């Protein structure tokens, strides 16, 4: 019983992390129509950057700031100097980001080596909190809270601000937004930076409990892909539901069928595609 509770909490914290990664991914995919296959690499490098700053300064918060900022800057460069140069052919853009991912991963391997690295967690967040009859690690609680807070913040930006209205409009009809006199390039760059920063933050959060290693980028990317395929392009609610589904399946799959856990996220994806090729909340 207690074991099951802890497993559910674990699944929740993993889902929360996945949501932070996938929300950035789906934001960029939704508005820019760019499938950023370097998103996993941004996650990994964000984690490493956070690790470097946290170990150097001893401040976990500064680590977060560094992860978010450095990856936002990286995203800016990626969008401004590379993606905007490839004319609007979606496929070429996707393949370009794939090339970027290969370069970034290889460079990360050179700089930080092939061993799993972890981000030191401040004393305040170590240990467990008592929740009724069972204890749960504080840090994982923090991840769940972070997921919820980021969901709420994104929801607010999406539904209650001008930026959000523009993004939603851009997801539905890019040309129309442009015709209204909005500088869509600036909107694109902003969104790309925001989405990238989310990947960086997730890298920092995830790095402390899942560790950082070469290959973590690909794992996270596949989860994010599955979530966006399930949830639908550019949908925040889709990303949230997809994250919960994938997070729970991945977590319980690892307990029930450890060797085939990867296979299990494939199930709902296949089912969904048979009935809703654009995902739960996807629109053409």
């Amino acid at each position, binding site marked *: 019983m207690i074991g099951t509770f802890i497993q559910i909490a674990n699944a929740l914290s993993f889902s929360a992390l996945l949501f932070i990664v996938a929300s950035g991914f789906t934001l960029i995919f939704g508005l820019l129509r760019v499938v950023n296959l370097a998103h996993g690499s941004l996650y990994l490098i964000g984690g490493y950057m956070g690790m470097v700053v946290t170990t150097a300064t001893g401040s976990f918060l500064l680590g977060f700031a560094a992860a978010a900022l450095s990856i936002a800057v990286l995203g800016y460069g990626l969008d401004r100097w590379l993606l905007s140069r490839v004319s609007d052919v979606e496929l070429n853009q996707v393949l370009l980001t794939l090339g970027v991912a290969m*370069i970034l991963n290889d460079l990360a391997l050179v700089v930080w080596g092939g061993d799993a690295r972890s981000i030191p967690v401040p004393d305040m967040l170590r240990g467990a909190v008592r929740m009724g009859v069972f204890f749960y690690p504080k840090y994982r609680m923090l991840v769940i809270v972070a997921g919820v807070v980021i969901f709420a913040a994104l929801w607010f930006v999406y539904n209650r601000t001008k930026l959000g209205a523009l993004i939603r409009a851009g997801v539905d009809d890019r040309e129309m937004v442009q015709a209204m006199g909005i500088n869509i390039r600036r909107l694109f760059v902003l969104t790309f930076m925001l989405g990238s920063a989310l990947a960086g933050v997730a890298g920092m959060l995830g790095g402390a409990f899942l560790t950082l290693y070469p290959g973590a980028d690909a794992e996270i990317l596949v989860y994010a892909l599955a979530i966006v*395929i399930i949830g639908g392009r550019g949908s925040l609610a889709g990303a949230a539901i997809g994250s919960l589904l994938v997070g729970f399946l991945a977590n319980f799959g690892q307990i029930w069928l450890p060797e085939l856990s990867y296979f299990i996220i494939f199930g709902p994806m296949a089912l969904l595609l048979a009935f809703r090729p654009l995902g739960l909340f996807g629109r053409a």
Partner: protein
Amino acid sequence: MNQSRAFRWGLLVVAAVFLLAVPHVFGEYPQTLATEILIYGLFAMSIDILAGYAGRTSLGHGAIFGAAGYVTAYCVVTLGSDPWMAMLLGVLASVVVAAIFGALAVRTSGVYFLLLTLALGMVVWGVTYRWTSVTGAENGLRGVARPDVLTDLDTYYYFVLAVVAAMVAIIYRFVHSPFGQALQGIKESESRMRTLGYNVPLMLAVGFTLSGLFAGVAGVLIVFLNNFVSPNSVSLALSTQGLLMAILGGVGTLWGSFIGSAVIILLQNVVSFYTERWMTILGLLFVLTMLFAPEGLLGKGRALSRRWLKKSSPES
């Protein structure tokens, strides 16, 4: 017209003579490279069938290629079965995997197709990586011995050459068949083909499965060349590399795949003398290709030469 046809036949004969002469002219190392180029060329061609003729870019072919290799290796190493039988089962496995991928992916197109095939491919990679008892995880499966008659590298080279040539002939027949033409119709306009009464998803599924068969043949051939298989031969990097080969050679040209394959395999071997950063180089190559020559090296060369010719003779 006639002249260009004669030229093409001439080129084919020269290529054939060259390929047949490889074991007599070169040493063991270049010969291994030549064998690899042939095998990866076939692999890239299997991707080009979909990309160039059905307008669907797959990033899951590495998984199909690798699944064939794994099944073959598992049969030979763990079950101790006859290598010929293992080859057959390997190809069969690739057909099954491709049929599943195809059935799921045909409803999507464009970027979604790419995403879905990528995700499916990663699932296969994840399975090979974690299903330790069957796949040997990171270590892979080692000691996949060739059939007795093919042990000699020269013989194996000729065997690969014969198989690849046969496959290429089948692929050419296939893309020029009514079915292949209809696939091309789907690439041009899916809605038009649907209106004309073609069952588009079914045709794509069949096309995908067939393309997977060729990828599987390549996957089996490479296992017997390397004598082992590891998660690397299922990885996204492999799918990517195959796609890059097809793109470099020019999507839709088919035989360009062999040029792409030669460029990448040779580059990989040259680069590895100087640095271990092959992935960076490959990534750079990908980025540069997308920025400057998305139509491939041949297409780029042709466009450049045309521009140059125009400049030098403004009359014509």
